[in-house]
């Protein structure tokens, strides 16, 4: 059984993110129950599980949207204090939420810089500079995009998505969290997001890719971490397991020989 696991390319490296023993309960429901996972530089980790498995909740703890009940988060091996979204951003953790989290009534530049506005030397908003920067970023991500003056409400799903992505990568993110990044996209756009992920990975950015659909993730991810009922079922390199085996982890909580089982693995 041990021979099935390939040598760990991350051995000896310090993880970018190491979440240890994280728990959070809403009322009586343990949404995340003593879960641990990690992420190395230049690595794509797929966080998989059914709807309601606790993956979005776990990741919202990392991005500072929810305060955790217990557990520790290490960034670059040092304990990190993350109790609100501003803290997470200070550590270079950027999130693309499933809902995109855009302020619909303002334009692309205002969304890109929301919370981090560029100011003139008199302390007022420098809208022209922000729009100029936005034109540059969007030019790379989505060269056809021209609607810089329109509120993002009026943009298409793909355009909105590229605004959300632009916001996440523009501020030198080191850790990128993408929650169901392709749920609202067509095939061509999904392809484009895949290309972007490969590019970011080359730049040494660590990426958490969250999905309930294994097909979205398997080809892009170096590693998958599977959750079920708030617990970690197991963790496996995509080179050591098949899609069907991962599906077994998601549905049955059954760990294949190629995976490292977690507290949520079913014991038969």
């Amino acid at each position: 059984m041990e021979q099935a696991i390939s040598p760990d390319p991350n051995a000896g490296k310090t993880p970018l993110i190491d979440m240890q023993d994280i728990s959070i309960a809403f009322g009586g429901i343990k949404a995340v129950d003593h879960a641990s996972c990690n992420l190395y530089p230049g690595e794509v980790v797929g966080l998989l599980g059914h709807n309601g498995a606790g993956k979005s909740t776990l990741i919202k703890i990392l991005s500072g949207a929810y305060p955790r009940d217990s557990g520790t988060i290490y960034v670059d091996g040092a304990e990190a204090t993350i109790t609100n979204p501003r803290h997470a951003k200070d550590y270079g953790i950027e999130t693309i939420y499933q809902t995109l989290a855009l302020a619909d009534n303002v334009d692309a530049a205002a969304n890109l810089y929301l919370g981090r506005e560029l100011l003139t030397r008199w302390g007022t908003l420098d809208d022209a500079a922000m729009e100029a920067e936005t034109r540059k970023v969007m030019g790379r991500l989505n060269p056809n995009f021209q609607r810089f003056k329109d509120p993002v409400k009026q943009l298409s799903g793909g355009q909105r998505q590229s605004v959300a992505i632009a916001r996440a990568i523009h501020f030198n993110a080191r850790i990128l969290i993408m929650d169901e990044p392709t749920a609202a996209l067509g095939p061509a756009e999904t392809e484009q997001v895949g290309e972007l992920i490969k590019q970011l990975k080359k730049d040494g950015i660590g990426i958490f890719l969250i999905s309930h659909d294994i097909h979205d993730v398997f080809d892009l991810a170096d590693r998958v971490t599977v959750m079920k009922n708030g617990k970690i079922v197991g963790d496996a390199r995509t080179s050591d397991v098949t899609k069907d085996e991962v599906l077994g982890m998601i549905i049955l909580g059954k760990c294949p020989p190629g995976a490292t089982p977690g507290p949520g693995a079913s014991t038969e």
Partner: protein
Amino acid sequence: MSEDIQESAAEPAYKESALVKFLRATEVDTRMLGMVGALLLIWVGFHVYGQIFNGFGAFLTSRNLWNLSVQTSSIAVMATGMVLVIVTRHIDLSVGSLLGVTAMMMGVLQVWVLPQYLGLGHPMIWVITVIAGIAFGAMIGAFHGYLIAYLGIPAFIVTLGGLLVWRGSAYLVARGETIAPVDNTFKLIGGGPYGTVGSTGTFIVGFLLCVGIVALLVMGRRQRIRFGFPLRPMWAEYLIGAVGSAVVVGVVLVMNSYPWPAGIVRRYAAENNFEVPEGGMFISHGFAIPVLVALAVGVVMTFIATRTRFGRYVFAIGGNPEAAELAGINTKKMTMLIFALMGALTAISAVIASARLNSATNALGQLDELYVIAAAVIGGTSFAGGIGTIYGAILGALVMQSLQSGMVLVGFDAAIQQMVVGGVLVVAVWLDSLYRRKSA
């Protein structure tokens, strides 16, 4: 991302009429044009109605327009704050009562308390009173904001409670007594013949406004050139500058063509030891001080709403509160600050209202909350949040006040007046929602 190509390709094929081209070139807000049109319609309508049925059109006279400007000030100041409150999906029902209690507090301070220590008519009395009043209003506003943001009580309930609590406290401050007369300098902030800047002052203000309009146009164009953004055609820049300046000059001339009544001129002459010449003297009112206060508030609030982080966050919170929170904006603190600002503006209105009345009564500001909310909503502030402009709210206040005083001038019953105002509010919001659905 693939559909962008089709979208951008489709745009040039779309045929534009001359009007659409004109609006696009000048970048004028069509909604504002509609409001200005409605306002002119109301003005001309009441004037003509008066001419036909009463034999005298009183509306489009310098006297009435001057009075209208003074009457609008108090509501307009509060409406600018109400825009921010409604944009963030809250409401403030307490402004009328808050105005009442703040006016009472300031009345007691300047009539009963300060003269004891400083002596009657001391020049610092009005300064201390105004500062204390604004601080008091801001504190109560912040308290409302705290209850709403940190204790999670809906704004409707907190400020409905405030409406009752502060009206009651306004009574308790002086057990229902009317406090009068207010300090002589303080009184000037309410307008009246002496509370104006006169003809020369009005010309100076008008000149500064014109310079401001041109400066904004030049600066805007320079910014666009700096970043290579599409420019307005030159003729459109000139047109906007000319129309803006013409409006300012028109207002200045109207304000200056309303003279002091003969009695006031005689008293002024007697006080200053000169003879009134044969046939009377023409001394212009010019801009009333409360109008200048409201104008200054409008400029400052527009600046806050459009040029600062605070304003940007207000609109972002209104558009999507959750997204604002996730972007790292402290939405609770923002809510508290917005209500504190509303309280401070209410205090400024309290200064204007009590100075104009030359007294503080516990009934001051009754029903003002409804006029303020109506002004903001008629001015295009959306209850769904995220949409609204300061100048819209000021125009909205002017529309409300024009209706109100127009009906008084032509002699409508009080009962009819209420019904018309109520009906207009509902129809205005209906028209607005139609407009939005079409333009969205």
